[in-house]
């Protein structure tokens, strides 16, 4: 799109953005505070955005702190991602009815409502592109994902800060939003530069942009500078240090009353030859070491914006004649994931953590031509014991060179 289409809006104009999107037929989904975290859900009022809040994140640590000057998008990745909306945690995929002894499939009357999601970051758009590859770009297409994806409208936001858990720069997934959006908001001072990324974006904002100041070259340069500054700050971070085993032992972790969040280590991940590094170390001692800490709770797979495993449950009524098939997220940390009639393919926590990490960072490359990791850091933050994949990879790399 031509640069001349970009324009400024103030925070006070955000409500008009919501209104334009709803007028165009979208349900609006946006970040908001719930249970002490910034989550995504339906939101109609811009006043409901998490104004004045910043999220402090570290391994197993997430707190919102008040910063009166903070705008509505100063938080970074929370526990939700676009995955929750395109590939929901639980969904009905089919309904069957037995009539006179014969099974009939019922047409799915419910077509998904078009969603406009306000707030995804560069890492979220990278995750969206990865899930597109998984669900849409193989020999088969997932019809449920496709139906939602086709109707998705994305109002992306450029980050101007990074949590200690963020490492999108290592994965080439951010911090700058470069593609995959309909509209892009970049916070500059108290205002936002709005850029248009699609025909749909142009249509929706036709009314919003009316009367707003258009962006000059220098304004766009200021918007680019936001990402450039953040990128160079992130790039200046040291590689994640590998702590001595004694410091990350279950005993040490349970003895520590508070995590070291006052000055948490900033993450980065050395991705050089990472596929071969991991697949050549499938029997590394570190897998057992991490298994001593891992609770196999599956939180990392639930918050991961790209994890796509699922299982299907048959839900029948008492007569057995009416059956609903529900697909729900599965996790490679559960026993069910590796279950076979002859036993379990992955009976240990070590084998399950190895499955997750090697799939995410190595196997994914074989399967989909891309890493499965965007560097969003959610798995680090939401791990109850703060296991940090960047540290685990660094430990394997350190012991392998």
């Amino acid at each position, binding site marked *: 799109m031509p640069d001349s289409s970009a324009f400024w809006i103030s925070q006070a104009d955000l409500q008009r953005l919501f209104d334009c999107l709803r007028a165009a037929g979208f349900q609006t989904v946006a970040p908001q505070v719930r249970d002490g975290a910034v989550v995504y859900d339906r939101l109609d009022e811009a006043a409901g955005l998490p104004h004045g809040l910043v999220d402090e994140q570290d391994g197993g640590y997430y707190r919102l702190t008040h910063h009166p000057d903070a705008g509505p998008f100063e938080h970074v990745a929370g526990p939700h991602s676009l995955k929750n909306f395109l590939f929901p945690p639980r969904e009905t995929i*089919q309904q069957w009815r037995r009539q006179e002894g014969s*099974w009939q499939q019922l047409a799915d009357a419910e077509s998904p409502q078009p969603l406009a999601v306000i707030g995804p970051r560069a890492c979220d758009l990278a995750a969206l592109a990865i899930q597109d590859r998984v669900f849409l770009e*193989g020999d088969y*297409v997932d*019809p449920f994902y496709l139906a939602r994806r086709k109707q998705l409208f994305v109002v992306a936001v450029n980050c101007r800060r990074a949590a200690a858990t963020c490492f999108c720069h290592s994965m080439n997934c951010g911090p700058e939003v470069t593609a995959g959006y309909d509209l892009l908001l970049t916070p500059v001072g108290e205002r936002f530069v709005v850029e248009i990324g699609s025909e749909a974006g142009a249509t929706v904002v036709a009314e919003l942009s009316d009367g707003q100041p258009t962006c000059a070259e220098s304004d766009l340069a200021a918007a680019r500078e936001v990402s450039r500054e953040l990128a160079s700050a992130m790039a200046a971070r040291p590689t994640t240090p590998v702590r001595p085993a004694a410091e990350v032992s279950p005993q040490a972790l349970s003895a520590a009353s508070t995590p070291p969040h006052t000055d948490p280590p900033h993450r980065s991940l050395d991705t050089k030859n990472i596929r071969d590094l991991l697949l050549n170390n499938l029997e590394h001692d570190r897998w057992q070491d991490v298994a001593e800490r891992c609770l196999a709770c599956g939180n990392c797979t639930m918050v991961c914006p790209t994890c796509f495993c699922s299982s299907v449950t*048959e839900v029948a009524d008492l007569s057995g004649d009416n059956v609903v098939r529900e697909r729900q997220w599965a996790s490679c940390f559960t026993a069910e994931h590796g279950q076979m009639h002859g036993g379990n393919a992955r009976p240990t926590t070590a084998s399950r953590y190895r*499955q997750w990490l090697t*799939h995410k960072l190595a196997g994914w490359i074989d399967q989909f031509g891309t890493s499965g990791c965007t560097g969003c850091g959610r798995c680090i933050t939401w791990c109850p014991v703060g296991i940090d994949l960047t540290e685990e990879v660094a430990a394997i790399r350190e012991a392998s060179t």
Partner: protein
Amino acid sequence: MSWFVGTATAAATATGPLSPWEYARATIAAVRDDAPGVRSYSLAIDESHRDRLAASQPGQFNMLYLPGIGEAAISIASPPGEHPVLHTVRAVGNVTNHLAGMRVGDDLLIRGPYGRHWPLEELAGADLIIAAGGVGLASVRAAVCQAAKHRDRFGGVAVLYGAKTPEDLFYQSDIAQWRAAGLTVELIVDRAAAGWEGPVGFVPQLLEQQPITAATAVITCGPEVMMRAVSTAAFARGLPPERFWLSMERNMACATGFCGLCQFGPEFVCKDGPVFRHDQIARYLEVPNL
């Protein structure tokens, strides 16, 4: 049978890819008791899906779906073009036990065929050794039928088949036909019973009696431990791993690479397998609990 009322299916079919969830209706045309706990089901497929399902290649599998019970991946025992489609199933789980209670005339749902097949075209002219353990014979049956039908396309064809006891050996009438067609069929059991005059032991022992030359190729299906033993025996006698194919088993919910359950290292057993050439997955076969 397409049930999608929205635009999703139209878009998917317009661009070529299939929905993974489209079922054909199958009616049980015949049931045969093969061995204790093992039955063969001849499935008549509804006309609109018949050609696609009957066009399977040896070594592929179908998903059999019983609404309210579940779905299971079952290898296709019938050769390409044959209808009704044959599935030989051991009752070991929810779906397969339920299937064992079904009768001629009952309906179920089916989708497929899925997965990579035995590379019979590539093996034209080879001396084939087809090694099967237990119900694994079902997933090589179509390949054996093809070899019997097109006997002149191969050199020697030896079927090595092992089961726990003599009564667990099935496909007896097929075996007679395969022998009549000029195939070698050797049987072995773990535990003999009255009247058994054949060898007692495991499939790799049968392999010892087969010549292994530059023309030899081995395809095998059975428990992982059995396939491992067969590969060890074959490689010890100089067979290169590039001439050894095996069929892997994992849990599956979708069969199309979406559910993630069947992963084996970076491979999806459903679409990169179930048939793998040994050297392609050798490094993963060596890793416990992968």
